[in-house]
């Protein structure tokens, strides 16, 4: 484990430290920016954007070489990729708006066609004199080996700018993501905000090309927000949770991949992120699977407890196994099925509340109150004590009977 700890402490060498810092910033920016996309239910648009970067990378290389440059300048390649990603994005929106094709078809079409065209350009570059060593294929899956300091600076500055832009624009973007029509009625320019949101996504995609590559960058835009959604119901919190989860994935993934050979950075970051997702899916407090199962069990027990007590109050026999178990566990009945003292008291209370509800429904036509009757909510939570006293007065029975005995 020592190499891993070294990598975690950024001690595994200059390059590894650069990659870890870059990946953390990238993960944070991607998680935060991807949140709006996820809330707007357009997560897969980012896939089209990511694949549309490929022809841009190739064309930028060709242009830089034909002007006598090196062709491998990261900033130039990223600018090129941003241009075609933007064109791809506009194509998706145009197709979804102007033709009868649905957005998913438009996404798939742009994704495959731009990517195919990018592959054509890559093969053109391979036949160019200086193209053999271009290594543009590394943009498919990312490549962090031999990352230069200036590359790391590009990623760090880009990532920070993306986070800053997210923070500045968080309010209008949240509004649009939740309810575009309400936002429009409030005077928010929805198309502009949408474009800005996609611009952010595009920026993150382009920045991430070097580290995770264009096929897997969508994972960083989608998985952290989906994961964060398990942990909170508040939109502001989702953004920063998603950012934190993305940053953590980037940092852990980069460290892991630096700690052993044959662990490619991009896929490892994605798999770390997926692991966090899986843990959240299973164990998140409210929306997680375990919590849901527990909640269901608790509900089931409450229903069985109540049905059992009602049966006791009417002196009916109980046959259901679970009901018997629930009642026994609370010492409401004895092992032989006869009600205990507390059992009889509880049964009487349940029966009385049932009568109270009957009366309440007669008096109150207000379904807002009586509609809350589900057999499980205690009547004291719905009506005030004086109202309940009024129900009891109308029932009248218990006092008369008590006097009789």
């Amino acid at each position, binding site marked *: 484990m020592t190499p891993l700890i070294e990598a975690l402490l950024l001690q595994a060498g200059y390059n590894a430290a650069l990659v870890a810092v870059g990946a953390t910033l990238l993960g944070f920016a991607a998680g935060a920016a991807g949140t709006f996309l996820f809330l707007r239910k357009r997560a897969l648009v980012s896939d089209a954007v990511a694949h549309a970067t490929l022809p841009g990378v190739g064309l930028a290389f060709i242009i830089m070489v034909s002007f006598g440059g090196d062709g491998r300048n990261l900033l130039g390649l990223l600018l090129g990729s941003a241009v075609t990603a933007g064109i791809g994005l506009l194509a998706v929106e145009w197709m979804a708006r102007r033709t*009868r094709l*649905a957005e998913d078809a438009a996404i798939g079409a742009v994704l495959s066609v731009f990517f195919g065209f990018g592959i054509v350009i890559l093969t053109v570059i391979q036949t160019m004199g200086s193209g053999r060593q271009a290594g543009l294929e590394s943009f498919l899956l990312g490549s962090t080996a031999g990352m230069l300091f200036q590359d790391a600076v590009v990623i760090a500055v880009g990532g920070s700018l993306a986070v800053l832009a997210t923070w500045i624009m968080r309010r209008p973007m949240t509004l649009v993501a939740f309810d575009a029509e309400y936002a429009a009625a409030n005077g928010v320019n929805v198309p502009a905000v949408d474009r800005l949101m996609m611009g952010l996504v595009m920026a993150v995609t382009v920045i991430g090309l070097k580290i995770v590559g264009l096929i897997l960058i969508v994972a960083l835009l989608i998985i952290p927000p989906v994961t964060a959604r398990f942990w909170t119901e508040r939109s502001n919190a989702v953004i920063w949770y998603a950012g934190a989860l993305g940053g953590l994935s980037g940092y852990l993934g980069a460290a892991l991949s630096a700690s052993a050979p044959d662990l490619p950075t991009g896929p490892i970051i994605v798999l770390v992120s997926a692991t966090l997702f899986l843990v959240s899916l299973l164990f998140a407090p409210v*929306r997680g699977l375990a919590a849901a199962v527990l909640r269901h069990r608790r509900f089931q027990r409450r229903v069985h407890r109540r049905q059992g007590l009602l049966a006791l109050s009417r002196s009916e026999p109980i046959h259901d196994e679970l009901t018997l178990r629930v009642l026994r566990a609370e010492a409401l009945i004895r092992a032989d099925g006869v009600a205990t003292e507390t059992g009889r008291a509880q049964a009487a209370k349940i029966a009385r509340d049932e009568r109270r509800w009957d009366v309440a429904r007669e008096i109150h036509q207000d379904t807002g109150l009586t509609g809350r009757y589900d057999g499980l909510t205690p009547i004291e939570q719905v009506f005030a004590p004086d109202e309940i006293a009024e129900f009891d007065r109308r029932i009248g029975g218990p006092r008369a009977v008590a006097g009789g005995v």
Partner: protein
Amino acid sequence: MGSEFVMFSLTPMLIGVFASVACALPGNFLILRRQALIGDAISHVVLPGIVVAFLLTGVVAALPMLLGAAGAAVLAVILIEAIKRLGRIEPGAAMGVTFTTLFAGGVLLLEQSDTSSVHLDVEHALMGNLESLVWLRATDWSSLMDPWALAGLPEELPRIAVVCFAVILLTLVFWRWLKISTFDEGFAQALGLPVGMIGMGLVITAAVAAVAAFDAVGSIIVIAMFICPPAAARLMTNGLERQVLWSVLFAVVSAVAGYVLAGYGPLWLGAEDAVSAAGMIATVSGAILALACLFGPHRSRVGAQAEA
């Protein structure tokens, strides 16, 4: 144009055509069902499926890889459904989570295992290798009658041809079921059709087509052919029968024109080497779709004419 064409271009072109048609047919229904991106997801998860099949069997053989990829596709569909239901997550995001994770797993497995001796890498998986599927034993057109030459056909050709005809057959046999359940699921259910089975069968058929095509032409053509020809056909007509025929026509045109442009286009422009045929086929299909978007007779939504 005689012998050279038969030797170097006939088989890749035929493979391209069969692969395109096999993907375009299920694509029609996927598009109408708003499941277009299932094709995208499938073509990503094919990679881990193939890698796992290779690791288990140790050979690059057709059948285990086909099984592995089909298994991965079914697993992906199940995972997407599970994440969607259990986590209450919208379908697009559930799909994004699933296929990126599986793809990342596939890449990691590939890097970890020793596959240097076999032809199995990510770039190959993406771009395919259409140009290399040549028919070296052919001399000219008469080779089509020569058993010795026919035995030397690239093995991808009969495989994709069989899959293509199987897809055509399935489409014809289940035509009414597919049509009814695609357009009105409630009605199909009321008729007692196994709607869930039809949907699953469609996805599995798409997966098999994707896997067979992937083997020969790479995943990029697979996604393009699932979506572009049917989408373009959708803009040409309102009838499902005619839409399917248009999509087949577009798929064939893309495959042939793409191959020709990739192989001979650079020569016409004065360059020396050919470019990627798979990429060019996808590009041509995109160009066809763009033309259909601009000029297709049924390109707008019903009632949206005034806006344009």
